[in-house]
């Protein structure tokens, strides 16, 4: 599960700029950021091990990006990897259930609420790291205005996850077996 989530997240990370280059605002900041959707999905499906796989992939990637600042790299991997899992654990009260059980607990409102919360935590965390690194470091990475970077990151995370999870849901509904819909499921 660890290796699979590491591979899937790295794959989505490298596929995103290739697929959505037109939506790139700053280097690494995209208005449609599918890897965040993958992060939510892997944390939902594989729990702690999924989150650990993402954290390891982030570490591998950010080690090169911020080689001069190991603390920034460490905090980024924590935010990137474990925030989704931790927020899910708190908001949904997920115990040591299997992936199926976790998905069963989610209705549309919980899922969209969770996606919004996670996008907020992730983008805010990344922007806080950028601001603590100092504007000089941010400027060298192409992030000139932190407000704009935060807005673009939040939009990318939110739209990327919504698109990815609802595309998956449609694929499951079309190709998979008949899925049960909850009484409160409007979307």
């Amino acid at each position, binding site marked *: 599960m660890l290796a699979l989530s590491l591979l899937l997240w790295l794959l989505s990370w490298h596929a995103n700029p290739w697929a959505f280059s037109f*939506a790139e*605002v700053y280097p690494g900041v995209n*208005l449609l950021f599918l890897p965040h959707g993958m992060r939510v999905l892997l944390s939902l499906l594989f729990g702690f091990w999924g989150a650990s796989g993402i954290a390891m992939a982030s570490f591998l990637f950010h080690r090169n990006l911020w080689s001069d600042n190991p603390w920034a790299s460490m905090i980024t991997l924590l935010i990137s990897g474990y925030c989704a899992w931790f927020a899910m654990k708190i*908001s949904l009260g997920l115990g040591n259930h299997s992936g199926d059980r976790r998905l069963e607990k989610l209705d*549309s*409102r*919980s*899922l*969209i*609420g*969770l*996606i*919004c*919360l996670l996008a*907020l935590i992730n983008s805010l965390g990344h922007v806080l790291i950028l601001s603590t690194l100092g504007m000089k470091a941010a400027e060298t990475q192409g992030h000139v205005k932190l*407000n*704009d970077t*935060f*807005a*673009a990151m*939040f*939009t*990318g995370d*939110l*739209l990327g996850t*919504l698109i990815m999870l609802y595309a998956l849901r449609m694929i499951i509904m079309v190709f998979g077996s008949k899925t049960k819909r909850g*009484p*409160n499921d*409007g*979307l």
Partner: protein
Amino acid sequence: MMDSKLTDRENTTSRSGILQVSARSGLCFAIWITASLSHEWFLGFLHYRDGVDLLYLPHSLRIALVLAFGLSDALGMCIATATLILLAMAPDFTSPDVNLLSLMVTAAQVFIDKPSIFASLILQALASGCCGWLALRILVPSRQASYSGMLVNLDLKTILSVVTIASVTNSGVHAGAWLLLDADLGGASARFSVMLTGDVLGGVMGLVLITLNTRLFAREGKMT
């Protein structure tokens, strides 16, 4: 005789219904105009560009007013948004020579010359007025025809999801409307992301405050 009595009663009922809807729409119109202008006055420093803020508290009213007044809110808010855009389009509004008739004539001339401006105005008004109602219709079961009483019982899960859908709809349609006016995709996408963030942050913050206040008043009302 019986039929005529029934028709009279139906007419009276429908007339009072229209009056009620008009009164609610008027109230929503006034609330929206006041909220927009107050936001601009107090939180003007959060301005990004025309009509786009990094924290837009009035967005919460788009949902709260639907919960309080129903669909008539959407009508009032559409007209209010169109009015605000029209006022923003008239730069010499403060001069003493300008009156309502001259404003309307100028607007009509602009709309005839450039129909895309009119289409953009309609799109923005519709998005602003109907996004809250649309999000509630999508996420709250259709059999629940009335939303009255829901404002007191809103939980964070519902607030987050309804605000997210309303914000995506509103900022998406607004981005389309801006593209109708000029084809600068880069500018429109930057404004879209800031608007979406501002709507979500302001919507969640505002709705949490409104719900907490409503609960407080409801509890005090029960105690008295």
